[in-house]
């Protein structure tokens, strides 16, 4: 049984078809990559999975049960955590507060229930340490961190709270080569721990080494949902760019290069 499965899901914004008939699944200990160019509908797809938006057609199953999330809270409660492309961080708040935002650990009895700061800071520092960033002052505002560090905070947070499924929306798009490597290694690590990972990217070179399953989106429609055994990297790249279009582009570029020589 799949941890998470969507069958023929569609989403409309008024008369705009954002997504149409998307089908894919993710199993425990497997990585499903969702690939697509800009505007292919990747973000809409993620927002449905994470509960920000609701689907209009089709079936959304979590562990075999049909679900319909009304808020990201619902998704989190089912163990589905997301690293959003904009990272969903509050820049003026401290690292540990961002890490725990929405799921703060508390001590005491109502109405004197307070956030357990010692535990929260300790765990935040620990989890970030596992991601390879050494935050020396968990009270420092997130806005003062570098892009890569912020990304790591977001991933560490999702990994900590995503008990079953981890969704990563373009986690490598803003990163340098070295830090992308860290993120990819982290995906493999999450996979090894038995989490289902959904990895959204427009870079087939990042998707290929870590993915077990590939779903390609183009203009809101699925170009197919493949197992790793069914295709290779060139094929994946070709599919993603829309096949014939890429061949044409290569020819044109080759001509242009020759003429400048």
């Amino acid at each position, binding site marked *: 049984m799949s941890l998470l499965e969507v069958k023929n899901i569609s989403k409309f914004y008024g008369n705009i078809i954002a997504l149409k008939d998307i089908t894919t699944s993710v199993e425990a200990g497997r990585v499903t990559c969702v690939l697509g160019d800009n505007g292919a509908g990747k973000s809409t797809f993620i927002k449905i999975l994470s509960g920000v938006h609701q689907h209009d057609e089709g079936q959304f199953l979590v562990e075999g049960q049909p679900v319909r999330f009304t808020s990201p809270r619902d998704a989190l409660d089912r163990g589905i955590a997301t690293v959003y492309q*904009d990272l*969903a961080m*509050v820049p*003026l708040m401290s690292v540990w507060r961002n890490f725990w935002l*929405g799921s703060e650990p508390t001590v005491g009895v109502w109405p004197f229930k307070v956030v357990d700061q010692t535990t929260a800071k*300790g*765990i935040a520092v620990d989890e970030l340490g596992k991601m390879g960033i050494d935050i020396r002052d968990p009270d420092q505002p997130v806005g003062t961190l570098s892009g890569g560090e912020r990304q790591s905070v977001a991933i560490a947070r999702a990994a900590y709270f995503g008990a079953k499924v981890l969704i990563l929306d373009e986690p490598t798009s803003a990163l340098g080569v070295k830090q992308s490597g860290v993120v990819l290694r982290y995906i493999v690590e999450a996979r090894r721990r038995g989490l289902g990972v959904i990895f959204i990217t427009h870079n087939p070179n990042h998707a290929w080494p870590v993915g077990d399953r590939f779903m390609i989106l183009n203009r809101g429609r699925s170009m197919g949902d493949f197992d790793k055994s069914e295709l290779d990297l060139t094929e994946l790249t070709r599919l993603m760019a829309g096949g014939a279009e890429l061949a044409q582009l290569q020819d044109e570029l080759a001509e242009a290069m020759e003429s400048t020589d």
Partner: protein
Amino acid sequence: MSDTAVEASASGAADGAVDTAGTDERLTFRGPFQRLLTQPEIGALIGAIAIWGFFWAVTRPFGTAGGTANWLDVAATLGITAVVVAMLMIGGEFDLSAGAMTGATGIMLILLVKDIGELGGLGLNLFVAIPLSFIVALAIGWFNGTVVEKTSLPSFIVTLGTFFALKGVKLGFAKLLIDNIQVGRVDEGTGYEFWRRVFASTWARNDHQFEGRDVVYNQLLLLGVVLFVLAFFDMAFVHRRRSDTRWLPVVFGGAALAVAGYVLLHVRNGGDMFFGVLVGAGVIVAVGAWGKYRYEPRTSSDLIRPSVAIQTLIGGGVVSLVIAVITAIIFDAESSVSLREIIADDPLKAIYLTVLAAVAVALGALWASRSGHRTALVRTLSALAVIGVLIAILLLLSDETVREARIDFLTSLLLFTEQGIRAILFVGLVAIGLIAMAMGAVRAGATSIPVRSFVQSSIALAVVAIAFFVQNQSASRKFRAELFTVMLLLALVVFCWSIVSLLAAERSAPDAKADRIGRLTMTVGVVLIVLAVVVRLLFTTTAEIEDGVPPALFSVRIVWFIAVTAAAVWALARTKFGNWTFAVGGNKEAARQVGVPAARTKTQLFMVVSAGAWLVGMLLTFRLTTLQASTGDGNEFEYIIAAVVGGNLLTGGYGSALGAAIGALIMAMSGQGIPFAGWNSDWRFVFLGGILLLAVIANNFIRSRAEAVRK
């Protein structure tokens, strides 16, 4: 504590050990002073102290218990709403209906209670009516929040609508039900006595005599200051791995000396200066030994000669202080002779003033040329010429025949009394001198610690000298009683600081343990200081009664104010709700995406504002018993101003409830201080506008300076 927590703290400690070895070059250490300055409310706090000091100095009643009760009374109602409005602002929204709401809840309560027959007025018991009005208030807040959330309209528009609706409803119901825009007499309701005690009881100071008050006040205050200073040391210097216990006897010896001096001072009623010196010496010895005992000693004394710029600053400071003293000696403190007559009759003073003006202009020119502003130089030189001409005119005007032709501006200039000139020049020159020396000390600190310590000690000595000088010269009892002591205390603190920083190594890396201890000590110190002030405000002594101090009435609303502020500060800093408030104000979409119920949080914030407005409505109703239908209308901007003055960001996501409370204090102090000073209270608004602008600019400036990387 759970196992994970223990693990976490253990690994945190391990991290700390590693950190001291290899520090992250991207993180710079921030000293205690810098950390203090990054607090959102610090600008407001400094402003509040300055305004308090200003009105304390210029008016007689302001600093007394009666005056304090007076402005605290105004601050309380303003502050309660300012605090809740600040919470909402941190959450990223506004509520313009808060002002009208205070009146609306009060009027609703009275109408519920009144028994006026067929047309309305339910004649309810107050025990029913008060909870009922609270529920209605919450419902209005819920309405505001829900409409803002459901429609995604700016809260500015939605609550503006609620404001007008409430304003109309108040007038409409008042006219419909009792045909009067004065809605009155809540005291006719059953249960009035009980609720009056809750919302409007008072503490009459003159009924509470406490002979030991001054002793308690002095000792708590001193203890508080000592703890505060020690906490500052703890956060500023490197701790020894193992304390050097050899110095402990010296610490105790110094402390014993100080205590003995203090006790003798008390027994002799403060008459003998010798004991004061004893206290000072004891404190200095004790603090110096404390530094040797507790902190890592400084290894190299790197004595570098201070640069010319620093020397100029320090020299200029000293010269300025000397000129200040000369000014004070030349001019008479009592004389109300006008400037015109001085110029006419006293050549010595006239020459002195001219020389002073010339020196000032020359210094300005020098400064302008040094910093390379050619145009500024030209401007300064022409200013010099203008001043020369002005003086000539003044001299001419002092001539009897020319005096008949009055020129208003000049005559008003000439009406400055000798006393006034003396005060202005003296205070200005002293301020310039001390600031210049302090700047010199700070700059010297970057290169040579001994030089800085030397300059700081000189500042301390200068302050002591000025304190004694002014005490001898002044006719003001107020000054002799309080400011003199405060100046001596400040000088002592500065002196101790310079000694310890000469002996002990300053910290340049974070030390979580020391910071925690320091913060705890500092909190205790502040609590003691506040307690001291409270004791002094609430109790009187027989001596005071015989002196005929006017009675002061402290209203219970001040307690409400403190309680609401404390609750808000606690909620914002420690609870989930507070965390979510910052989150929805800082980045609502992000907050929602990670599972914060953003809409609910915002709606709850609107309800908190309504609850605050309701509380103020109750306080007003039980104070006045009769309300105007327009009560509270238009106050909403004052709440927002108080919140902004307190360092809250208009765009949300950053701010402090404590800051809003201090903002309310600033506004109340200026509002009440102006009439105390005998000025036309219409000027209040000019003052308010000025404070608002200044506060925002100062907040931005302080924050950016404090956050800038320290070199």
